[in-house]
């Protein structure tokens, strides 16, 4: 099967996956107790049960679930994600506004993770068992163990309040694509990328160390190739295969991590929006963000598969 057919096939397989994502999302949101009306009404001595029923009817929340699902799905397919109950704003408009923020932050975190993890992993593998290896493993373990929100708060404390290089709040009036925003991405980017960097580094180190023990490496060395060429040209390419897969899978971690990081750094992306939406039981918004996140992750995994094929021609797809 050619790579092109493979890509097409994978693209088609996204359709049932997304359908599954939509069903699960819808079910989870609707099985969770409470709806926006509960939240809007809260504990209010002036509002009677009849008032509440009226509100529910107004928003179509009194219809059977399957009917609500079909209505919702039908609208989603035409690009209409419904409205936010409390403000009446269009959900799709909110997503379009928030999505770039999260994507930029994710890319920054991802680049940061790779930029740290790959050289560190190579270095640790080449110096396996030595002091540098121990140090890097210590940092890898710490990186995986430290909770995001704590790291974020610590970075704010140090970066903003102690050495005062960054503000606590990113400038809210600066457009996202202004070059200056790169500076403000540093702290949240580090926070979001740290755990990913740690995992990638560990895999890089292991697979590299494994490759280094293989016969072709001995052969290459015996041929008299410089060690640098052996490591960076032959070994690296082979060890990258598992790293690429992992890095793509970690996209999910980055997106999930963005929820906490965006709240702590007041970054106006989808993650912060999701938390607010959940607190307010804004079901249309929750479903749309979850669906978008699902799409992002599915696409990231697809890219990983394709890269996997490109990196390792031995792999055949049936």
């Amino acid at each position, binding site marked *: 099967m050619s790579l092109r057919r493979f890509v097409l096939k994978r693209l088609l397989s996204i359709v049932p996956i997304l359908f599954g994502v939509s069903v699960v999302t819808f079910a989870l949101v609707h099985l969770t*107790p409470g709806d926006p009306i509960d939240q*809007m009404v809260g504990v209010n001595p002036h509002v009677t*049960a009849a008032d509440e029923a009226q509100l529910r009817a107004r928003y179509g929340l009194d219809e059977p679930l399957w009917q609500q699902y079909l209505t919702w799905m039908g609208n989603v397919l035409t690009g209409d994600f419904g409205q936010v109950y*409390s403000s009446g704003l269009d959900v799709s408009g*909110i997503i379009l506004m928030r999505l770039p923020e999260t994507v930029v932050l994710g890319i920054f975190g991802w680049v940061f993770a790779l930029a740290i993890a790959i050289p560190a992993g190579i270095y640790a593998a080449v110096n396996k068992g030595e002091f540098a290896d121990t140090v890097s493993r210590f940092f890898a373990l710490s990186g995986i163990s430290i909770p995001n929100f704590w790291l974020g708060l610590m970075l704010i404390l140090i970066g903003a309040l102690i050495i005062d290089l960054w*503000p606590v709040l990113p400038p809210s009036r600066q457009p996202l694509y202004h070059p200056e925003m790169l500076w403000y991405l540093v702290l949240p980017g580090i926070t979001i990328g740290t755990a990913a960097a740690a995992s990638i580094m560990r895999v890089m180190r292991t697979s590299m160390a494994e490759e280094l023990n293989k016969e072709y490496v001995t052969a290459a060395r015996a041929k008299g190739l410089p060690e640098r060429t052996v490591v960076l040209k032959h070994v690296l390419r082979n060890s990258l295969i598992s790293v690429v897969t992992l890095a793509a899978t970690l996209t999910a971690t980055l997106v999930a991590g963005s929820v906490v990081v965006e709240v702590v750094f*007041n970054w106006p992306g989808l993650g912060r929006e999701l938390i607010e939406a959940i607190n307010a039981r804004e079901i249309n918004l929750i479903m749309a963000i979850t669906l978008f996140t699902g799409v992002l992750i599915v696409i990231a995994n697809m890219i990983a598969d394709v890269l996997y094929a490109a990196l390792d021609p031995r792999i055949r797809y049936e």
Partner: protein
Amino acid sequence: MSKGPTHTKHGITRRRMLQGVGATGVIAVSGCLGGDTDAPIDVRLEVNSDNDDRVQMVDLIASSLEETGYFDVEIEDYEWNDYTARVMDPEYAENGYVPCIGLSGTFNPESFCNALHHSENHGQCCNLNGIDDPELDGMMDDARYGTDVVEDTDLRRERYDEIWEYLAEERYSSITHFDLVASVMTTDVHGFSTYPFSESLFSYGLYAPQDEQVMWIDESAHPDDTDLSDLEEGGTLRIGAAENPDSFDPPYSTDTTSTMVQEFVFESLVRSDVDGNLYPWLAESYDLLEVNDVDRTDYEEYMITVDLNEDGLPETDEQIIVQHPGDDPADGEVRVLTPEEAADAVDDGVFGMQFRYDIREGIEFTNGEELTAEHVVATAERYENSDLSAQTYDSLLHAREVDEYTVDLYAQIPDAEAERELPGLAIHSLEQADLDGDEEVLDPREDTEPIGTGPYVFDEMSDEQYVEYVRNEDYWVTDHGVDSFEWFDGPADFPDGPVIDRLELEIVPDNSTRSGALQDDEVDITYGLNTEDLDGYDDSEDYVVDAIEAGGYEYIQYPMNVEPWDDDRLRQAVNHLIPRESIVENVLNGWARPAWTDLPELAEENGTTDAAALEDDIRPYNEHDPDAAEALIEEVIEDYDLD
């Protein structure tokens, strides 16, 4: 929680409140409770799991009960929406459980007894355990409604005193404490004033229905040396807001941040000060012209009959102003009074009260319209079937233009709260008074910027990031001068209008991040911080913490329809075991006030003849007193054979 007139009080010294608070009580872990003991009385406390403070409070109550050896306590927690659905189910009262919940009260003393105890509120918020005491119902109705209490405020206060005494004896519920809300600001920002309304932007801008009118930043002086002559005009106030304002449309929102931003722009006929006293505002003066001894059944001949749909809702698009109290929804139809018939009733002289407001001439909206009676009438219509219609048409019957600058507001029945409730409408411009609120919303995000008469004008926003307001250069108070208020007796050099040029709200939902932004001087003032952070700010020279009692309170309610809870001695005993001081100190870090009576300072003005005497009377019932509790429980055990 309802958005109602809530209040602000500066200068409650927290230290004073905490005097005499010993280090009593420990935070118990729920897992330790409910073991196999032979205690004679089973208690099941219920709470919503997402409110940490409330859960800890219930734990403290549980361990206090268990320590006596008389109680086998079980705690159940539920997700909030599950919990509210559960406790507001009319059947809940038969379970014999003790629920814990919080409510938000107002200047109206009724909000601290009626919601909890009136039989009409069973099955909704918040008479959870079905208290049905006709004598108490009558007492509460008579303290608010009727020509006698309308005409005689002292009589009203006496009636409330009787209610608090009655409740102390019967003890259907135990209010544990009154919440304090705190705003924290840098010392650059202080002395916000809206004389005589409030001493703090946040106490008013946030928690009261009508808001700040004048304010300033004094960049140099320490708060203790506030002097009006130091006042510096201009500058920008950066506010760290905890939430995005959901709505800029007064009748279509109830959340705190929305209320705050609306109050920069919208004003009302009348305003209230920190004690709940009312002052004419957009109205130059107002009078109560007529009180008639009518009740809601007197509208019978004007009512129309409407069918109920399958959800039990009247099938009409009109605002229902009065529903006939004698009708049974089970019959499938009810008689209701809608706006058109209400006008007919007023024509015939059938109404409870008539207030006349003389509107100040020369007040301009920011779109150039001049405020007239027509605006008030159109605003009342816009509140019909809005998110606030239940509150508004709780008392309002009809709004009528008398002449260009005179408007009458009619109350349904003689109602001592009508003077405050009727003029609570945020007056709209005619340009925006016919927005339906559904398709056409008053929202800058939908290109409709709010138009009001207030001190600030909406400038720009980016949703969930920031909202900016600029000073209203043509503000009417600046033109008229504060001296034009007949009631003004403040300092001679008090400014006539807002003195800050810009207000910038930065939306920062995370409490710790917002606290960091305050420390890094990225915002000047914020609120809603974690109580453990407040102590640090309170101790610091560089910050001012302004704590106010805003009406929030917590209570547990006894299942008095189930034995042995029908015995008032048991309820009194449990009440004696509630460690109010320990709850305030250990759960809320001192940022609350123990409820020694059911009446907070907020509602004292109309709620008692003498607050100090009331506390002397009632406090002994509410003291933590295990010995008194033991004596009462022994009696109950004997009478009910509970061994």
